């Protein structure tokens, strides 16, 4: 069952128990799908995948504070969990990874995660890093100019924060007090380049001051923390008080993508150490500790998720690849290049 259909946490800055469990379910489903996609890549079926493992809590916590019925989400390539939270089904995601006909966001013309979703305003036009940031400023600006009640959330990694586009968009957002949330999922690695080679400062959030708006750093494995910080930012934006930069500190539990091997640049100790900051395990412990879940229920959540993923995989694998018949369509509205 898709979590976005359940009631969100609404105006409270505190996640209810009910919501905690619901969000946990989403995280487990995401983790399960994430594992499956990695496997499909090793089987030669899914050409490329970027894992969200380690980012799950940050992504669901952020989405929970927003309103998918009206807000805009400029996502980046690691947001498998956010996409599930926003309403993508495992089938739709798998169609993306397996390049199948009927893939909703780009017709499988693009890498998975890319394109624009038909049901919720979630989009990512390209693989070029940080280009979505000025675009997000444009979306937020156009809402503000028309007085539309919506917030724009643009997500990106620590590497993207170095791009010129990141600077230009934050500068602009600050000048115009745009209803825009800059959500940085800092996992300390841009492929293999570690944080201390990416920036001279300790925290991306500290840059916000240079653009005239608040920046806050949170533990990205803590659902509650992420949710609360995002809620504050969303309220600010809706009130016309301008942008916020949220930095969610997470671990990238797997290599950059299925094409990467992080043992080449991360020590065994480092990899071992970061596996302790697994948000699924952390949240599981939290829920078990709070008595919101029994071990059997936790088990059941996992097996349900697996079943859901199995059904989806079986169905989508047998579907045809995105075909050639329409390859010339949708270049421009009248796709007649020459007479």
């Amino acid at each position: 069952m898709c979590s976005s259909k359940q009631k969100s946490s609404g105006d409270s800055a505190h996640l209810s128990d009910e919501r905690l469990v619901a969000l946990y379910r989403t995280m487990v489903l995401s983790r399960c799908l994430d594992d499956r996609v990695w496997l499909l890549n090793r089987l030669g079926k899914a050409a490329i995948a970027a894992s969200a493992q380690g980012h799950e809590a940050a992504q669901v916590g952020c989405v929970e504070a927003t309103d998918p019925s009206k807000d805009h989400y400029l996502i980046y390539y690691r947001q498998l969990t956010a996409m599930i939270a926003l309403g993508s089904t495992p089938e739709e995601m798998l169609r993306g990874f397996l390049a199948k006909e009927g893939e909703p966001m780009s017709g499988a013309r693009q890498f998975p995660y890319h394109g624009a979703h038909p049901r919720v305003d979630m989009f990512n036009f390209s693989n070029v890093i940080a280009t979505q940031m000025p675009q997000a400023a444009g979306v937020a600006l156009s809402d503000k100019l028309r007085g539309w009640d919506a917030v724009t959330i643009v997500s990106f990694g620590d590497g993207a924060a170095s791009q010129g586009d990141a600077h230009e968009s934050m500068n602009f957002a600050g000048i115009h007090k745009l209803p825009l949330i800059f959500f940085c999922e800092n996992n300390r690695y841009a492929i293999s380049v570690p944080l201390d080679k990416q920036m001279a400062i300790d925290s991306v959030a500290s840059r916000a001051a240079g653009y005239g708006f608040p920046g806050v750093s949170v533990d990205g494995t803590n659902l509650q923390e992420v949710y609360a910080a995002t809620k504050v930012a969303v309220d600010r934006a809706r009130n016309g008080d301008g942008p916020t930069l949220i930095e969610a500190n997470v671990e990238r539990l797997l290599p950059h993508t299925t094409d990467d091997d992080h043992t080449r640049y991360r020590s065994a100790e480092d990899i071992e150490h970061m596996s302790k900051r697994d948000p699924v395990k952390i949240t599981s412990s939290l829920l078990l500790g709070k008595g919101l879940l029994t071990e059997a229920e936790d088990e059941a959540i996992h097996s349900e998720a697996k079943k859901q993923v199995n059904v989806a995989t079986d169905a989508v694998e047998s579907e045809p690849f995105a075909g050639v018949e329409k390859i010339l369509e949708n270049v421009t509205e009248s796709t007649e290049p020459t007479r």
Partner: protein
Amino acid sequence: MPELTLIEAIRETMRDEMRRDESIILIGEDVANRGGVFLATDGFVEEFGEDRVIDTPLAESLICGVALGAAVNGMRPIAEIQFADFVWPAINQLVGEASKVRYGTNGVKNAPLTIRIPYGGEVRGGLYHSQSIEVLFSHTPGLTVVAPSTPFDARGLLASAIRANDPVIVLEHKRTYRLVKGDVPTDDYTLPLGRAEIKRLGTDMTIVSYGLMLHYALQAAESAAAEGIDVEVLDLRTLRPIDTATIVESVSKTGKALIVQEDTPAVSISSEVAAIIAEHCFFDLDGPVMRLAPPEIPAMPFSPLQEAAFMPSPEKILSAIRKLAVL
């Protein structure tokens, strides 16, 4: 019927379009209080307000990225890049992103974005205020590129560009801004994108051109007429998509083609036009396809002698006409 210069035609078109459609906003450097460095938006912020005429920070990628974001969110932005020579930081947002929105989302989103860019030389602009930049955009599927030469065409093509539901780059030759004056109806009209126009009928050869060169070609054609050479002059008007049918019809009739452009020739619009002619007019050609273009140097220099040496002129074009006439 009013006679307007090219910049006046641009201004009136934008004014009328913004009055007609509230979703049109202007975004660029100095477009608001200054009215644009060429006065293209003179008086606009007074009429339409700061919410629709927006001065941006000095950041071209931002200008085009923001315009793109607004375009996919239901507005119809016109972004201005102050000088073509400064467009390069925006290539990512235009060629990398905007051109692929409709295709990359398989139609879920589209970007009704217009980007106006003053370009071209013979204004003592030196290497960085004279460049012709059409090639990268004209190569890109998903983009439309127009280069009107006359005030009449400027109005019609700009209106079409603004109303198009995909990104259109409008290249305005800055020398023609005040140099060219012509009739521009006040009624609402558009001109089709992707359609060239024969500006002068002839029988001995076809000159294919655009921008400032179109006018110099017409001047050279008049001189050639006095020498008994009857030159047909074809104005491309749209650089992507290029109007193959009109080019082929003309060159098949005349049998000879001279392509005149202000951009350096290697891998340029003239290369594409020459390929089109070679492919489709082979058996109707009475001579090789010729190109007249500047020398292969990075851009036109500041010194007046050097700028003149770089630029094709009516005299140089006439010389080429004479040569092609007897080849």
